[in-house]
């Protein structure tokens, strides 16, 4: 089976955000594989181990993403592809990323494409469905279970806490929801092997794309931090009195109940 994983490098969830010159500062920040993409990588490896084939992990970004691609290889992916558009594209949005990925994938005959259902930085969750539509294949988002039997695929989709049991077929794109699996940690031998696995780097030119083909359709004009929350009132006294006081405050001061 020809399996692809769409991966994004993101800030660690424990990072605080600071803004410098109108942009989110990357200075000193820890980066990780987007947590939802880790589920996609783990599932891809499990599908390969069960059904055979090869897993290629693909990212659109700059050379810093090599580290996360190596981690994916250490987890067990077979090949990695970095599509580096940093020098070619000034303004980038989900349209850009999807166009680039679809252009790369269109002649690769993918059977199964996996991605995270959302990236924890931009948080839009658009790229997976956009890529599937560009490739003309079906997709199912936020899945928590994947069963493949020949060409037939049964998935469980999380819909705001309820579950849909969906029947579909390959070729298919799915996006991973938390609960799909337990992503493995790279093992030491895995890390050693990863160093020798192929990591290909491509640019827009290699995909026969021009900058205007992938030009963003939206533009960010400002980035700002939310107003800082001030610590409020810690109540005092007997617990029973504190509870009464809290209910009074919620009613008359905060007016939320």
């Amino acid at each position, binding site marked *: 089976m020809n399996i692809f994983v769409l991966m994004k490098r993101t800030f660690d969830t424990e990072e605080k955000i600071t803004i410098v010159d109108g942009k989110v500062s990357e200075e000193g920040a820890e980066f990780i594989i987007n947590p939802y993409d880790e589920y996609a990588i783990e599932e891809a490896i499990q599908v390969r181990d069960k059904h055979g084939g090869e897993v290629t992990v693909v990212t659109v970004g700059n050379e810093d993403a090599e580290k996360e691609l190596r981690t994916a290889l250490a987890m067990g992916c077979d090949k990695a592809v970095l599509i580096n558009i940093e020098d070619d594209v000034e303004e980038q949005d989900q349209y850009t990323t999807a166009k680039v990925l679809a252009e790369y994938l269109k002649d690769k005959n993918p059977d199964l494409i996996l991605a995270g259902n959302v990236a924890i*930085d931009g948080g839009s969750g658009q790229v997976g469905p956009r890529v599937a539509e560009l490739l003309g294949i079906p997709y199912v988002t936020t899945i928590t279970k994947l069963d493949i039997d020949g060409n037939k695929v049964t998935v469980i989709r999380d819909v705001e*806490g309820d579950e849909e049991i969906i029947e579909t077929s390959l070729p298919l794109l799915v996006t991973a929801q938390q609960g799909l699996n337990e992503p493995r940690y790279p093992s030491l031998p895995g890390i050693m092997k990863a160093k020798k696995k192929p990591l290909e780097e491509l640019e827009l030119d290699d995909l026969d794309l021009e900058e205007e083909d992938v030009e963003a359709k939206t533009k960010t004009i400002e980035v700002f931090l939310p107003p800082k929350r001030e610590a409020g009132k810690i109540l005092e006294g007997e617990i029973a009195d504190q509870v009464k006081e809290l209910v009074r405050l919620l009613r008359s001061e905060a007016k939320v109940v």
Partner: protein
Amino acid sequence: MARKVLTLAEVRDGSLRNVSFEAIAAAKTIAQGGEVVSVLVGESVQSYANELFFYGADRVVVVEHPNLKNYTSDGYSQALKAVIDEEKPEGIVFGHTALGKDLSPKLAIKLNSGLVSDVVAVEEAGGNLIFTRPIYSGKAFEKKIVTDGIIFVTVRPNNIQPLERDESRSGEVKAVSVDIKDLRAIVKEIVRKTAEGVDLTEAKVIVAGGRGVKSAEGFKPLQELAEVLGGAVGASRGACDAGYCDYSLQIGQTGKVVTPDLYIACGISGAIQHLAGMSNSKVIVAINKDPEANIFKVADYGIVGDLFEVVPLLTEEFKKLKVHS
């Protein structure tokens, strides 16, 4: 500049979701005096049209077909594409719901357009439509403009004020007939796992538990409190990882991002990744044994104490209020 704007109305458990009315309000701002047309898609949904007029829709378009009984991206995109071809709107607003998140990117790319997801505010300034949305799950925000194509937007529930309901409003209902076919993914079964239909992202009150809840059983007093307040129960990653509850309840940078009027954090320490998912709530209450817990730094009101003592007392107090009012 007046624009024609569509909204997709969403029915859940036999009634329209609030976010559908919020989408109409957002569409009004985008339309700048132009027409707002709400679209109803389903097997039999025409009866919901009036409610959409009450909340400000100028016109309603209905697409009904047996293959639209359950949501599928193929079925719904065929329905909406037909409406878009006929109406030629300049903007389309969805709720940032499971359905809206799944469908909007497919239509946006079909129509070679951008899409601003998870919008919490819309304003018009200097001839530009400006959309505000959270990034890093609310650790920061960005303002975006659409530079090309149709203006596709999803709006986050609970953030945009709907219009005042007005039963004197009415309008024209038009049926569009579309042959919905070739569905490549079929919903075989829907398994309800959520209780009472109060969805976390739309809940006005959330009672959330962390590691301090100690067990699945420990969530019971939280559920009782949520029930009295008409709210939903949520959890921190710690509680989910420990197996006390389902991952679908997780609030945080991984998990759901919520903005209720009242968030009651019980036995939650307040890791940065959790705060990202809830710190834009209107009012935060923290109940924790540890006076040094991080959660107190963002809480409007805090009680230092054992949640198993505090939460049942709080439930009793609210019950009393209910009786009195």
